[in-house]
């Protein structure tokens, strides 16, 4: 069956019921493997044991940007193709992405205090991630501002697309401006500037959190589809009662 056929609410529900438990186990295994190997990896020569925060902070940062990208692609699906699953996906991505972005900011602040001497600085990278978090909150607020999910979906999609300009700003802020935040070390062209004893635990952890993101996204989409089904049934009953 072509992949596009799964972009049907009923097929999606059946697929999600099978995939959520399976991917949940995969994600849990990868996260435990990544964090356990990270905890026994040697301490960093400069940061000491504080480097352990990297194994959660970096995946949260990547998934904050990844979540917003999913939301923006879903917004295109809502505004251009008007696909019934697109705004359901956009809302779910906003919910999971906001949580990962919040965790990125909190773990970053806790990492920053001992290494930079401050929890917060109005630095380009930190500020642009805060803007990303506020955009997530804005999209979620728009979802709650309308009773009709179709109108809410369109308004949220416009904000999601406009706000996507912030994604490359977050990514390249450390290259474009002076920043206390370190530059890219894993995704550098050529070779990563991180020792393999820390790189592999980080990659396992990142892969585990990525799969967790997929599971949470799928589960939230499933809930939203049920919520919409209940709404349709309530409207049908109300219409029948009026006749």
């Amino acid at each position, binding site marked *: 069956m072509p992949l596009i056929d799964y972009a049907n609410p009923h097929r999606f529900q059946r697929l999600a019921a099978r995939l959520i438990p399976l991917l949940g186990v995969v994600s849990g295994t990868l996260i435990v493997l990544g964090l356990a190997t990270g905890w026994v990896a040697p301490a960093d020569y400069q940061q000491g044991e*504080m480097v352990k*925060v990297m194994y*959660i902070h970096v995946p949260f940062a990547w998934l904050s940007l990844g979540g917003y990208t999913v939301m923006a692609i879903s917004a295109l699906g809502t505004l251009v193709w008007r696909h019934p699953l697109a705004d359901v996906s956009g809302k779910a991505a906003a919910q999971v992405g906001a949580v990962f972005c919040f965790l990125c900011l909190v*773990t970053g602040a806790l990492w920053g205090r001992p290494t930079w001497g401050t929890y917060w600085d109005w630095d380009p990278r930190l500020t642009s991630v805060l803007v990303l978090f506020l955009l997530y909150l804005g999209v979620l607020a728009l979802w709650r501002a309308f009773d009709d999910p179709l109108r809410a979906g369109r308004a949220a999609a416009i904000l999601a697309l406009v706000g996507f300009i912030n994604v490359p700003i977050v990514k390249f802020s450390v290259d474009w401006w002076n920043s206390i935040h370190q530059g890219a070390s894993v995704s550098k062209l050529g070779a990563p500037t991180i020792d393999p004893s820390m790189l592999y635990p980080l990659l396992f952890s990142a892969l585990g959190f990525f799969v967790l993101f997929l599971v949470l996204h799928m589960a939230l989409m499933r809930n939203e589809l*049920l919520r919409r089904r*209940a709404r349709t049934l309530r409207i*049908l009953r109300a219409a029948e009662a009026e006749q």
Partner: protein
Amino acid sequence: MNLGAHAFFILAAYGIAAVTLAALMIWIALDYRVQQRRVRELEERVRKR
């Protein structure tokens, strides 16, 4: 394991992440049950008519 002078910051980061993600998963699971029950009840009422 000795986490050194910054143990508080490391444990706080892991603790907050674990609690937040657990809260999200519990909320999703509870919401799923609520929505499922609501749909079932509404479908039964529609069928009875």
